[in-house]
């Protein structure tokens, strides 16, 4: 990072991140593609899941064989948990890995849509924050739930753009902007980003970062899409900071009206 970049860097829980783009590590066709894509994305913060070692074929799965924790900041998630207790258990297992006391908290409330359980997420967030975790909480796009998560002590609140893996982009920008405007902690859009313009648009709503996985892993060319996402997040951030022109229903000439020939 240059000093300018550092001045506008993402800071969560007092830690500064090299990029406002955070990426997941799931669903890649191969570990090589995953590593290449993550490098191309410029992301420093990389989410991982906590799972039982598969005692038959563990070697390929272990993410630490592929991602160097010196190069990337590994953020354990609680994906797959359906209760506050279960999420707390997974969060603690993740912390016990010894890399970090950050956790991406995710408590699912419905198996079909993978939408989060607001109440259980708030409960788990409170327990974990009280236990010293830096909680980055995945949530829906409801302001009141976001406010409660901030009250519960979350280090970051991460509303969805649209359901996990849907690729629909930000469906309700009003709600995302409300959340950003009202919270003091960083707001990171998590889940639902489908393409680069979605990520750019998300950043233009003023949020602090974007977390995505399927949009890169599910592209035809994940490495190139990762680069697109890096550029798109930087573009959206710069655009938001630059202050866009007003949109208007009328036309305004960009060439001078005077000086025409007779």
């Amino acid at each position, binding site marked *: 990072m240059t000093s300018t970049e550092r001045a506008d860097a993402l800071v969560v829980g007092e830690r500064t991140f090299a990029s406002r783009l955070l990426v*997941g*590590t*799931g*669903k*890649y066709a191969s570990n090589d593609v*995953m590593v290449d894509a993550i490098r191309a994305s410029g992301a420093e913060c990389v*989410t*991982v*899941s*906590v*799972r*039982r*070692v598969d*005692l038959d074929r*563990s070697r390929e*799965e*272990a*993410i*630490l*064989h592929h991602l160097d924790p010196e190069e990337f900041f*590994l953020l*354990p*998630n609680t*994906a797959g948990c359906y209760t506050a207790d279960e999420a707390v*258990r997974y969060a*603690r*297992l*993740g912390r*016990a*890995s*010894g890399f970090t006391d950050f956790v991406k908290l995710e408590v699912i409330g419905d198996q079909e849509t993978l939408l989060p359980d607001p109440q259980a997420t708030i409960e788990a967030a409170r327990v974990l924050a009280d236990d010293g975790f830096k909680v980055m909480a995945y949530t829906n796009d409801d302001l009141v739930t976001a406010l409660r998560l901030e009250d519960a002590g979350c280090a970051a609140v991460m509303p969805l753009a649209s359901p*996990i893996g849907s690729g629909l982009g930000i469906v309700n920008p009003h709600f995302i902007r409300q959340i950003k405007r009202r919270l003091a902690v960083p707001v990171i859009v998590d889940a639902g980003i489908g393409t680069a313009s979605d990520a750019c648009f998300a950043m233009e709503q003023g949020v602090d970062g974007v977390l*995505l*996985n*399927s949009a890169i*892993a599910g592209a035809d060319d994940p490495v190139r899409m990762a680069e697109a996402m890096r550029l798109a997040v930087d573009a959206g951030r710069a655009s938001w900071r630059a202050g866009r022109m007003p949109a208007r229903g009328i036309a305004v000439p960009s060439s001078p009206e005077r000086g025409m020939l007779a």
Partner: protein
Amino acid sequence: MSEPIHIQLNGKDREVSSDLSVRDLIVSLDLAPEMIVVERNRAILRRDDYADVSVEDGDVIELVHFVGGG
């Protein structure tokens, strides 16, 4: 030689020798202890304790690690 004991390891019953430490168990499975987190009877073990904690008959042990996820 010691009697075998029965534990539940990652959701499956397994017979192991009775004189193993948690560290021994991990190594015997060809896993790297520094990449594994151990939950024993619902309590997480500190990695420094792996060599000192012995596997007991009836233990429910979960060996977990990081895998790809979003």
